[in-house]
C-alpha cells in the first residue's frame, strides 16, 4: 500500500534540480505526484512559483519490501526524507547601479550559502540571508557570472546561476539646424538670411540585462551612456560659426549636464566641413528618461569667435535621443 506523505519540496522557478528517490533507514521514497502554486510578492512584484512534490515510501528491514499505509514506515523510518536543498535568485534590482541588490531564495534545509562572481568567492552567506549587495555595475563586464551554492547539514548542495549581459550600441539622430541672421545690405532694408545645417548626435551606450534572474524596481542600470558626439556638417554657402553645446541627461548620481568640447572626428561625406563637439559621461541613465544635446542661446548662441553677429536659432537647438 502506498501513501502520499505530508512534506513538500519547494523550489523557485529559476532553480532546477532532480527529484530523486531517497533511501533512508531501509526505506525508499519515490515521487508520486507534483503540484505547482504561483504567488506574487506585493513589494517586489516578483512571482514565485512553488513546486510541491509528494513522495510515497516503501521499506524493507528484513529483505521483504513493505509499502507504507498511512503510518510511519516500520523500522524506525518515521522521519520524512531530507528536504533536498534548493537555492535560487529571486530577483535583481539595479535601481541604484552603483549598488545593485540581488535577492536570493533557499529551501529550509539549506544552512549556509556561498556566492561566487566569475568563479571567485564573493561572499559566504548565512541561512538567514535574503539579499546581497553586489559591486557597482561599472565593474560588471559582459558575461559576468553569479553562482549561488547552498549547503545542507547532510552535506547535500544545490546551486543556481545567473549572468550579466552587457551589449554596446551607438544611438544616433540627425536633425536640421536652422540659423537666422539679419544682414544689412546694399538695399533699402536689412535682409534675413536662413541657413540650414545637418546636425547629428551619436551616443555610445551600454545596455545591461540579466540571464537567470528577473529584475524588479526601476531599471536605472539598464543604460550606461559613455560618450556623445555632436557634429554639424556643412559647406559653402553656409557661414562658419563658433558654437557651444552641452549634453543633458538624468543620472542617478545627478551628474546631469556635460559641457561638450571641441573634438576631431573624421567624417567623410559630401559636406566640406564638419565641426564636432564631444563629451564623456560614463553615467547610468534614470530609467524612462531621454537625453539631449543642446545649443544654448543668448550670449552663448552660435555667433562667437569671428562669426556673423547675433543669430537666432530657429530649429534644431535641441536634439533629443531616447534609449
Amino acid at each position, binding site marked *: 500500500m502506498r501513501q502520499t506523505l505530508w512534506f513538500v519540496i519547494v523550489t523557485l522557478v529559476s532553480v532546477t534540480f532532480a527529484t530523486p528517490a531517497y533511501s533512508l533507514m531501509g526505506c525508499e521514497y519515490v515521487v508520486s505526484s507534483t503540484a505547482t502554486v504561483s504567488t506574487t510578492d506585493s513589494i517586489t512584484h516578483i512571482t514565485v512559483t512553488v513546486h510541491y512534490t509528494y513522495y510515497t515510501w516503501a521499506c524493507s528491514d528484513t529483505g521483504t519490501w513493505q509499502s507504507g499505509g498511512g503510518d510511519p514506515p516500520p523500522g524506525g523510518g518515521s522521519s520524512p526524507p531530507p528536504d533536498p536543498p534548493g537555492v535560487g535568485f529571486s530577483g535583481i534590482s539595479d535601481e541604484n547601479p552603483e549598488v545593485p541588490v540581488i535577492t536570493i531564495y533557499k529551501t529550509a534545509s539549506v544552512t549556509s550559502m556561498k556566492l561566487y562572481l566569475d568563479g571567485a568567492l564573493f561572499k559566504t552567506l548565512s541561512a538567514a540571508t535574503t539579499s546581497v549587495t553586489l559591486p557597482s555595475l561599472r565593474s560588471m563586464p559582459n558575461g559576468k557570472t553569479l553562482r549561488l551554492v547552498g549547503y545542507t547539514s547532510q552535506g547535500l548542495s544545490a546551486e543556481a546561476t545567473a549572468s550579466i549581459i552587457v551589449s554596446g550600441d551607438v544611438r544616433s539622430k540627425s536633425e*536640421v539646424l*536652422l540659423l*537666422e541672421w*539679419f*544682414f*544689412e*545690405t*546694399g538695399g*533699402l*532694408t*536689412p*535682409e*534675413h*538670411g*536662413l*541657413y*540650414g545645417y545637418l546636425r547629428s548626435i551619436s551616443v555610445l551606450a551600454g545596455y545591461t540585462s540579466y540571464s537567470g534572474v528577473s529584475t524588479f524596481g526601476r531599471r536605472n542600470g539598464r543604460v550606461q551612456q559613455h560618450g556623445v558626439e555632436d557634429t554639424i556638417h556643412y*559647406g*559653402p*554657402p*553656409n*557661414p*562658419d560659426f563658433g558654437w557651444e553645446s552641452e549634453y543633458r541627461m538624468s543620472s542617478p548620481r545627478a551628474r546631469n549636464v556635460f559641457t561638450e568640447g571641441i573634438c576631431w572626428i573624421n567624417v567623410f561625406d*559630401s*559636406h*566640406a566641413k564638419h565641426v564636432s563637439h564631444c563629451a564623456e559621461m560614463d553615467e547610468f541613465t534614470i530609467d524612462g528618461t531621454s537625453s539631449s544635446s543642446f545649443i544654448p*542661446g*543668448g*550670449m*552663448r*548662441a552660435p*555667433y*562667437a*569667435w*569671428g*562669426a*556673423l*553677429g*547675433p*543669430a*537666432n*536659432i*530657429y530649429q534644431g*537647438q535641441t536634439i533629443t535621443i531616447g534609449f
Partner: protein
Amino acid sequence: MPLAILFLMVFGAVGGHAMEPDDIVARVGERVIRFREIRCDRIWIKEMLHARNDSRPVDEACLDMEQARLDLVLKTELLERAVAVAGLDISDQDIAEQELPLVHDEAALSKYLEFSQAIPRAIARVRRGEDASVVYAAALAPLGIPRETFDSVSRMFDTQEKIDIYLKQDLREQTLSTLRRNARLAAVAARLVANHRAVAAGTARSASDVAAEFWKKLIAVTNTAIVAEGYRLPDPKEMP
C-alpha cells in the same frame, strides 16, 4: 610716407570702424561689396565680449566678425562663378538633394515666416511707444530670441521706413529664393568636393591641395580683390 600707411604701421590694421557705409571693401568682377554689408555692431560686440569674459579689444573682435561676413559674401559670389569656370553641370536632382525640407513644407515655411517677422514687428511696436522690455518679453522671449539679438537688429532697423519695406515685401518668395539659391550653391560645393577628391585620387596631391589650386585660379580669373585695408581674401584651404 602716406599718413594712412603710417597709421597702419603704428596701430595695425584698423578694419572697418574708420570706414563709411558706402566705402568699397572688395570686388568680385563687377560685383562691389560695400562696408555696410559687413560692418559689425560695435555695441553688440562689446556686450558679447563682456558676457563671455573675453579680453579681446572691441576693434579686434569687430574686425573678426566683419571678416567672417566678408568671407560669406565672397564665397557666395565665387561659388556662383565656379560653375562656369569648372564647367560644372548641376542638375535639378543635385539641387533637390541640398534643399531644406522647409522649401517643400508650406506649413513649416509659414511658421518660419512668422518667426522672421517677429523682430521687425516688435521693433515697430517699440517705435510706436511701447516699452522695449515688455515687448521683448511678450513677443520674442517665447520664441527663444535673445534680447541682445533684438537690440542689435533694432539698431539695423533704425528708421520706420526700413521696417515698413521689410514687412511689406514678399517674404515668402524672398525666403524661397534665398533657400533655393543656397541649395544650388551647396550642390556646387558638393560637386567641387567630389571633383577635387577625384583629381587627387591616385596622385601624390591631397584633395585640399587640389581645391586650393582651383580657388586660387578662380580668384584670379574672376578679378576678385580686396580693396580696403585690414581685410583678406578667404583662405583657399577653407574652400570646398
